[in-house]
């Protein structure tokens, strides 16, 4: 709920397993945390010191990770990235685990708290991001937007997923995208297999 004198940006995440026969099972539903990266994007936009193209301020990327369980009791607004994102060691095959997997993935930098680029566990600066397509972004209310991320049956298998983050595309407007975390949520372990797809339904209220 919006309240009195401040804009209380908030969010709610739902996760569903979708089996091949069409059966859906909700496995998670809870609020999330809006991180300081949202403020970084807002500050850059309204001070006129960031990217020139407004699409760079849109939330278009996400990451999945496997160590959210380590921060369940401590995560908060200061989170600048996932604890352990997919792709840092095995690259894109962490996401495309089966032949024919079509999950859209891009590479780019991740913004650190000071605007710099954050390095991976391997010392690289290249991170893998899932792409949120146009048709997966829905306006549900005057000030509410829902993002739907579909992880198909052939993607991210053999990983125990337990964290997800939404990223603003490239608010600094660099030639190589430098994306900042704007919303984060660890969740209960999901051992991903090719028996089911995962649907993340994330609603942000501005």
């Amino acid at each position, binding site marked *: 709920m919006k309240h009195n*004198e401040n*804009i209380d940006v908030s969010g709610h995440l739902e996760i569903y397993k979708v089996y091949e026969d069409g059966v859906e099972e909700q496995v998670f539903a809870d609020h999330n945390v809006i991180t300081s990266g949202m*403020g970084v994007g807002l500050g850059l936009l*309204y001070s006129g010191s960031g990217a020139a193209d407004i699409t760079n*301020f849109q939330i278009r990327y996400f990451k999945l990770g496997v160590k959210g369980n380590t921060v369940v009791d401590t995560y908060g607004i200061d989170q600048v990235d996932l604890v352990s994102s997919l792709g840092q060691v095995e690259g894109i095959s962490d996401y495309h685990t089966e032949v024919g997997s079509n999950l859209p993935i891009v590479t780019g930098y991740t913004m650190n*708290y000071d605007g710099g680029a954050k390095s991976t566990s391997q010392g690289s600066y290249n991170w893998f991001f899932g792409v949120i397509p146009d048709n997966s972004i829905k306006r549900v209310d*005057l000030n509410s*937007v829902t993002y739907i991320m579909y992880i198909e049956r052939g993607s991210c298998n053999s990983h125990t997923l337990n964290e997800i983050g939404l990223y603003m595309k490239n608010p600094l407007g660099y030639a190589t995208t430098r994306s900042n975390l704007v919303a984060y949520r660890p969740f209960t372990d999901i051992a991903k297999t090719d028996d089911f797809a995962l649907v993340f339904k994330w609603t942000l209220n501005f």
Partner: protein
Amino acid sequence: MVKGHVTICKIYKDGTQEIVLDEDNLTTNGLSYSLAEISMGAGSEYAEDFPPAYFQVGTDTIGYNTSLAISSHFYQLSAPFDWTDYGDETTLEVVKRYRGVLASCTDINVSPPSCSALLLTSSLLSSTLYSGVDEYFAVIPPEYISKIFMDSFEVEFTLDENSGNGKAITEVGLFSKNPKGLSQDSPLLIAYRKFTAITKTSDFSLVIRWSVGFLGVSNNVDNHDTGGYINPGPQIPGSSEEIS
């Protein structure tokens, strides 16, 4: 979470300064609406249309109730200055612009559609449209906007000794330039503050300093001073990244 803070300072001709207001403001629904519009790819496609570019001062107040969820759902000052109210000798650039407002339509099948501006109320998305009304605004030059912290912005403007004299000023509003991306600027209210009347005279200027953003909520970002401009931090070795 997204907060605003406003400071109003009287500065007398002899240099004496007197702070007359130093409190939080109301961040209005125009800011929330703009963020949702950006997320949807609606509105302006140019980032330069979003920073604050105009302000108004007025002589009445909006009677919002801060205990209600719709307390920020208004897009206007209660009694904004007209052109003549700023004064003949003002150094401000005063312009007429089409102030943006969200309106609720009850019947779109008549011409013109039957709509009313939203004032301390909300509306279903499907029955809300963007409309406007001509009013007078004072221009905020881009160089008056600064950035001290990573997650906020600051803006400062002055009602000089020759402006608004004789008026009992009770409200001030900060307007985004043209977030809807119309062919001519359509300012949208993003922050508002009402206060005890300040009767403006030629004895002093009023300097209004505004900060909006994630103020004081993050230990890491808030402790990183950008020095007033954007500091992208340590560069990648061998990289020659530039803002495009």
